[in-house]
């Protein structure tokens, strides 16, 4: 069995880690540095099958692996094929990290469901998070272990030598040497050190040691046994959680002698002289020293250098500094391992999604939904609405039933318009304000009976609106029942001068008048028919059970096949509604849009009893207006939405919506304009052309067509 290392075949014994196999072949994985085989140092990092920063001592060798040495920073991959990573969430009373002696003892002592992990078995715990939740990288994938309690029994790491020559090959910790010898690897003539030497000597490979007293020993390998330091990063990371640390991981750990010369942090190549340099210039806190030198910020996250840094600082301060913050992760995982188990935000599809695709629509996402942006014949979309009849999928609108003795009062206190005087069968357009008097949504109020209402909200605002209505109902303590119907009801807008005809053809003779609604069967499908208009033409919104949407859509299509019926998507709808001057919440309005700024004072009845936002409006209405959303007209094609309004030389506002209006033969726009010298400019430059303020609706100002 073999793998390749930098192209060379390396055979290995079953159970060998990559590091052991390399050492068996006489190769130091990184060329030099004291080998610990405990996952604590950066001296065995290699690339395995293209993945850099793999600890070869923690990775079992497998046949066919492509292992490469990693000298210096590896290159960024150009592309990567993401292999799926399995992930499993498991639950236990107790998780024990580390199955050395202390960990095994802890496991024997407890009852309940216990899970244990050990890096020696390839299970690397990368972090302990609130929960507690223990995240483990295993050969079979990621494990997310949720538990009541964690015992950290991660043992201790062996101290690494800090002195000149510590980057030579042939230096091993005591435990590493034991592992190698039990793997049958001969280290040749060895010197055993229990104290820091002055230096190691050799070219690439150690050939001797000069001891503290200046004496020199010749050797093939050095075994260092300098002391142990608690492997407590996980314990420190979990501070404040239900965590107990046992065994060597819990021991205080004696500080090594202060390092005098040599490399303190092999990951970031920080020398003792670097520490001296920053210390002398005022960097005299653990964190400042770390940040000024980058010591402790490499792969081993202080595994090698932390005890030495503490000792360095202790020698210069009255007390030993505490360790620096233990931040996750303690063992590295790849980005795709981290991402395993994460799901991207879902997109919603309306019940007519397949119909739109069948009709060749280009779909776009809007407010969390897939919606038809355009159908193949863009001109026909617009033309159908203005001259014949058209269908629009408005199933994404927020929809809600509110019922109960407190329903009227709830809506009166929630909406800035009157509700009480709305008759059953009546429809009213309404803004929704927050406590600051800012417009957060708009929609319709349809009264069904004395105590029952059907409300609509914008597509993007629906889920917030549901929360909003429920919160206020509870705050006011009113006796109401609330049911969100957004995802249970589909809605099709039938619009155009021949919309009535279409409805008649489908058997509805008793159509609601403008601003009214009724319940009736359309093509045999129960619909709430709401008569209002966003497009400017006669429009019927048909709200119906989602499982009947396709049937209804097809019936409408069939009934209109001889009158140039064509569906319209969002793009056309934006032009149609702009010709009518209707603003869209979030597109034309801003966070601080009061009804006054939008030119919708009429929609907030300040003479009625208190409603959400009223107090704010009473106050801010006294402050001079500084900006407002108004209509603009200009000749020629529409400038980019977002274009700047220029007055004289100065920018005074920004276009929010702009479309060329085929029916008007000019461009119509909505745009914010700021107060300039105490007045709102009426004529501005947009895109180098003149645009004039114009009252909206631009199209059919009297609304005859919509009332039709």
């Amino acid at each position, binding site marked *: 069995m073999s793998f390749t290392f930098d192209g060379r075949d390396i055979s290995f014994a079953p159970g060998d880690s990559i590091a052991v196999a390399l050492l068996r072949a006489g190769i130091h994985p990184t060329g030099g540095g004291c080998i610990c085989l405990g996952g604590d140092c950066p001296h065995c990092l290699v690339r395995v099958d293209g993945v850099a920063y793999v600890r070869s001592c923690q990775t079992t060798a497998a046949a066919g692996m492509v292992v490469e040495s990693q000298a210096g920073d590896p290159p960024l991959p150009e592309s990567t094929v993401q292999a799926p990573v399995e992930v*499993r969430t498991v639950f236990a009373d107790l998780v024990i990290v580390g199955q050395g002696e202390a960990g095994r003892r802890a496991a024997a002592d407890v009852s309940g469901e216990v899970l244990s992990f050990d890096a020696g078995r390839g299970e690397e715990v990368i972090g302990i998070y609130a929960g507690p939740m223990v995240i483990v990288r295993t050969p079979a994938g990621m494990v997310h272990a949720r538990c009541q309690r964690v015992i950290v029994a991660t043992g201790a790491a062996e101290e690494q030598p800090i002195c000149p020559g510590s980057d030579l090959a042939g230096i091993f910790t005591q435990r590493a040497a034991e592992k190698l010898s039990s793997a049958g690897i001969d280290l040749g003539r060895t010197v055993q050190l229990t104290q820091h030497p002055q230096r190691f000597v050799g070219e690439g490979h150690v050939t001797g040691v000069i001891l503290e007293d200046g004496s020199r020993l010749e050797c093939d390998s050095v075994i260092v046994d300098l002391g142990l330091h608690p492997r407590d990063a996980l314990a420190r990371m979990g501070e404040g959680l239900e965590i107990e640390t046992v065994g060597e991981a819990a021991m205080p750990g004696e500080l090594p002698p202060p390092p005098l010369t040599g490399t303190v942090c092999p990951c970031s190549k920080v020398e003792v002289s670097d520490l001296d340099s920053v210390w002398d210039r005022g960097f005299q806190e653990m964190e400042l020293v770390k940040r000024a030198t980058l010591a402790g910020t490499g792969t081993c996250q202080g595994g090698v250098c932390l005890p030495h840094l503490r000792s360095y600082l202790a020698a210069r301060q009255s007390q030993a500094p505490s360790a620096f913050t233990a931040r996750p992760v303690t063992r590295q995982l790849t980005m795709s391992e981290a991402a395993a188990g994460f799901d991207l935000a879902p997109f919603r599809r309306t019940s007519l999604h397949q119909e739109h695709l069948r009709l060749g629509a280009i779909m776009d996402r809007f407010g969390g939904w897939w919606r038809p942006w355009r159908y193949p014949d863009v001109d026909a979309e617009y033309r159908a609405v203005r001259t014949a009849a058209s269908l629009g999928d408005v199933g994404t609108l927020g929809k809600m039933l509110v019922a109960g003795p407190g329903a009227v009062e709830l809506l009166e206190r929630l909406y800035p318009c009157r509700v009480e005087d709305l008759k059953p069968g009546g429809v009213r357009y309404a803004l929704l304000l927050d406590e600051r008097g800012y417009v957060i949504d708009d929609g319709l109020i349809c009264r069904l009976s004395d105590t029952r209402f059907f409300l609509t909200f914008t597509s993007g605002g629906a889920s917030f609106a549901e929360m909003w209505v429920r919160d206020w109902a509870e705050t006011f303590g009113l006796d109401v029942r609330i049911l969100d119907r957004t995802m249970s009801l589909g809605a099709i807008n039938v619009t155009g001068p021949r919309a009535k005809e279409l409805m008649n053809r489908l058997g509805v003779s008793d159509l609601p008048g403008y601003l009214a609604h009724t319940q009736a069967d359309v093509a045999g499908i129960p619909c709430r028919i709401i008569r209002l208009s966003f497009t400017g033409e006669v429009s019927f919104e048909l709200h119906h059970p989602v499982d009947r949407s396709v049937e209804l859509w097809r019936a409408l299509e069939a009934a209109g096949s001889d009158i140039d019926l064509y569906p319209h998507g969002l793009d056309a709808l934006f032009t149609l509604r702009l010709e009518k001057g209707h603003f869209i919440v979030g597109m034309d309005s801003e966070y601080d849009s009061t009804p006054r700024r939008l030119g919708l004072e009429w929609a907030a009845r300040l003479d009625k009893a208190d409603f959400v936002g009223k107090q704010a409006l009473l106050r801010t209405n006294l402050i001079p207006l500084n900006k407002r959303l108004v209509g603009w007209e200009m000749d020629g094609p529409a400038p980019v939405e977002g274009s700047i309004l220029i007055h004289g030389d100065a920018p005074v506002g920004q276009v929010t919506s702009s479309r060329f209006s085929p029916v008007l033969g000019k461009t119509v726009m909505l745009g914010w304009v700021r107060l300039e010298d105490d007045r709102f400019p009426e004529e501005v430059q947009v895109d180098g052309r003149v645009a004039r303020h114009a009252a909206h609706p631009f199209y059919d100002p009297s609304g005859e067509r919509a009332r039709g």
Partner: protein
Amino acid sequence: MLLIPSTTLPASAPVVEGLAGWRVVADPASLDELSGTLPVPPPSAGRGVVLRFAPDDALVLGENEVVVTDPHAIVEPDTGWVSIQMTEEHALDLIATHALWPAPPERPVLVQGMLAGLSVKVYLDGNQSMIITAAPFGLELEERLGT
């Protein structure tokens, strides 16, 4: 060593089907009456299943008519949900691989939470099970559980 069961699914990919029922929003007491004392009666009780989404909110499956005592109750036909039916074993495996919560031990039981990033309700009766989500998420549910 912790064993990770395979997440490979049976040969037939899951398919969402529409659910038709009654949605009832009513005062909790009248919903208690409707559903008996159990939050979810087993189907063997000889009548429809009352899936209690909240104290004042339930989806009733398998009944032609629903009557509650609350005079202000909202009782509406509801076809806005879809479900995937599967064996309980399969459902439990999906929960272990796609959810952050453990399946509760009681049966029958209705659990609500996120599964594969979608908000779902899982009904487990000890034998069959069904994963329910709102219709607009149906295809995503199929896609996410099918791979």
